[in-house]
């Protein structure tokens, strides 16, 4: 149990997917404009990455590894993720319109979010088993959600400030992200 909690803390805070690994930067910079959208996207990302890492882990352990098709993992994972997002979207639309309305429009965006593929590949690299993969996926997505919500909060304050002209737009957002990244480096000091 302790090992699993360590995986979550490690992936969510210490090796934060956005601020330390630079995965999912597009949506991190784009969607953090609005707080409400950031919360919804965060929810959708947690949902998809957790399921995708579970499916990818099962596929790798029971299909790719026994057939020694290890080198096919990039192709298989990207297709599975794309199909999975479609299925999740259709399922939610039918079974749970409330969740679909909150998350639905962000689901297709997630297919191209490199964090999903990144987690699946990192899990294989670290030779995590099924349970560890699911926890690592959940932790990574949680880290993404924390980062995007924090940035959305910071940006709503920046909007009220007089920013020097050349820094308006992307530069000031990137500088805020740099400061957050410095703050998150402090988590590297966490020891258990």
């Amino acid at each position: 149990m302790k090992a699993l909690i360590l995986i979550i803390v490690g992936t969510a805070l210490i090796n934060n997917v956005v601020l330390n690994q630079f995965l999912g930067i597009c949506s991190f910079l784009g969607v953090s404009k609005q707080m409400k959208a950031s919360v919804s996207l965060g929810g959708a990302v947690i949902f998809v990455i957790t399921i995708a890492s579970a499916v990818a882990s099962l596929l790798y352990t029971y299909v790719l590894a026994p057939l020694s098709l290890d080198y096919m993992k990039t192709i298989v994972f990207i297709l599975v993720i794309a199909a999975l997002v479609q299925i999740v979207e259709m399922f939610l639309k039918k079974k749970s319109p409330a969740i679909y309305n909150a998350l639905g429009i962000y689901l297709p965006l997630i297919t191209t979010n490199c964090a999903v593929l990144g987690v699946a590949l990192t899990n294989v690299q670290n030779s995590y088993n099924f349970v560890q993969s699911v926890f690592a996926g959940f932790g990574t997505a949680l880290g993404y959600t924390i980062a995007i919500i924090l940035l959305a909060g910071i940006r709503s304050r920046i909007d009220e400030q007089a920013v020097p002209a050349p820094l308006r737009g992307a530069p000031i957002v990137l500088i805020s992200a740099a400061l957050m990244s410095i703050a998150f480096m402090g988590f590297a000091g966490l020891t258990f």
Partner: protein
Amino acid sequence: MNKYFERLYNGLIKENPTLVLMLGMCPTLAVSTQAINGVGMGLSTTAVLILSNVVISLLRKAIPDQVRLPAYIVIVASLVTATELLMHAYVPSVYEELGIYIPLIVVNCIILGRAEAYANKHSVGLSLMDGLGMGLGFTVALTLAGMVRELLGAGKIFGAQVLPASIKPIGIFIQPPGAFLVIALFIAIMNAIGIKTRQRKLVESGCDGCCATCSSACGKKEEVAEK
């Protein structure tokens, strides 16, 4: 100017994928810790981009419109896997250094973006030059970011000591925060000298940063926003 060279100029300067279009930010931020990594990542992406543009341009009449995106993804993923295996065999040091970011070339927005915006409408020769131009533009931007970060963070360029040892390098620049700072600086300089980038769109919609796959999602999002 000959139309083939026009593609090169377009990729390198006019529509530089990283600095002007702001595509492919993830690898730009992640691997620019050293100039040499920028070159490695840039050239491997260039190879994939040229080949994917050529293959997609060759198949542009054969691929049905409805399934074009999955088809592109399969083509790009196969090319990336081949590149990854070749790099593992012939340049193991670069392979180790770039790690997970090599397979992640699959989801690099530049590649699917060029397939959708250029290669599926133009001849093989032009698509090849477009891939070369865009790839070199990406390589130049990555190498430049890598050089700045390496110089400030380690006092070196391409591994050679440049700053005298008495000047202590600013270590934060080769750490993750340095990536955000250097790219912010690049864009701020471009803003200050009046080069227009597409950053406003990227930062405000979150759509342009990703490739064509999410264009439908962006349409939907705008509809919802209007309601």
